[in-house]
């Protein structure tokens, strides 16, 4: 099972993303980030090895505009 996100994890990731966030900001964000990670874990469990991402690149579409 994946490790649960902490405020410290968020701080590191925010810095890497070039975001300046206060402790209050991080605290407010934490529940939503945890929920998002839980959602991804559920999704990971339902995909099969052969499932490709939706929205594949179509080479012939380049001259549409």
């Amino acid at each position: 099972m994946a490790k649960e996100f902490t405020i410290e994890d968020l701080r590191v990731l925010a810095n890497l993303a070039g975001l300046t966030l206060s402790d209050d900001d991080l605290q407010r964000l934490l529940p939503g980030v945890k929920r998002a990670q839980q959602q991804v874990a559920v999704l990971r469990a339902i995909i099969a090895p052969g499932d490709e991402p939706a929205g594949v690149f179509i080479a012939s579409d380049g001259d549409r505009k």
Partner: protein
Amino acid sequence: MSTVVKSNDLCYLAIAEASAGLRRKDYSPVDLTEACLERIEALDGKLHSFITITAERARAQARRAEQEFASGKGRGPLHGIPIALKDLYMTKGIRTTCHSAVLEKWVPDYDATAVLKLDEAGTILLGKLGMHEFAFGGPSVDAPFPAVRNPWNLAHIPGGSSSGSGAALAAGFCYGALGSDTGGSIRTPSAHCGIVGLKPTYGRVSRYGIVPLSWSLDHAGPMARSVEDCALLLQAIAGYDAKDAASANVPVPDFGTGLREGIKGLRVGVPRAGWFDENLGVDAATETVFNQALEVLKNLGALIVELDGKPFSIARKANQTILVAEAYAYHKKTYQETPMKFGSTVRRRILEGAFLSAADYLTAQRARSALNEQIRANFKRVDVFAVPTAPRPPDTFEGMDPNEQNLRPSFTNPFNLTGLPAISVPCGFTPDNLPVGLQIAAPPFEESTALRVAYAYEQATPWHERRPAL
């Protein structure tokens, strides 16, 4: 009797009725436009549904339409009909704010494709409508424009993100409107405001010139007070557009043709098990109203088939993951430069996307493929899906709890993820007199089927005839 009350008769006409009256010369486009502007002036101070009112432009368009009618140059059923646009449709020379301080003074130099098409159809633009900031989060309390209120009860939210479109139609301020829908933003305010809203199939209506929220989930579509009016608006805006990378090059049928054919023998799938009882489940009054709506469909000759709701339930998780990741990608640069210009709600939601990895995003897109297959496989057994549009009535502004919202099922998200057409039609009221919506979803590019079911239901029930007391 005030002139506002007298103008109600004109303001609440259906588009088809108004159009017939214009052709008969019972009234003119100028009369319709003035009636709407007068009503907006008198009542929108309570609702805040408009951000920008384009009164002079509307009057000029109305005079032009009047001349065209006089010289026999009819442009079809939308000619001379006053409409309004969610304020994320780019309009040449008219500010387009997305209800945000970020774009408070932005005036685009071109029109969205859907705006051009409505203009060619001869509609009259009354103005730009309030929304959730950048179509994301909830009603903003710290945006430069006030949050839109629900005409049925001002203490309640109108639903979003196309909140101004829903409220303005319910209040009789315009005859039709455009909204956009990434997770339910056309259908939810339609349900909460007691009007009709259609999210077409992904690719049916061009999104060119609409400020994006999430490229792979965004849909543009019509909102109106009746199913037939939605069909008329969809007819005008549907069609292939090479300027939108997701636009589908498929034929556009006549959406009015099959409207009155009835639903005898139609198989209606209800994906209840494993979805309606998810977490906090569906509000009891809402489910009662929904079950009564199913009885009406049965009495009209439909067959109700219970389905497994689990894939629909999981679809919300994929929709939310993709949505926040794409929204962050779109807004990242602006956020880094001017974070405080975003309202607090949208700021928090956008930032959730900063903490998703590329692998998380692609996991959601792979799940999307799998869920799409599972959900569409049901069309071997049924012709359409029916669910409540929203799991509960609109919250009060005071009692709104975003965390609780995440603990209710989303009945709209799965149809963004799968791109299926879905319509919300009024199906009753709670004991507190708040509207409830019935949602019908159909196979891809079968908007006509969704419209036919919604029309049959609408004509068999009185809910669309009720008006809020303002």
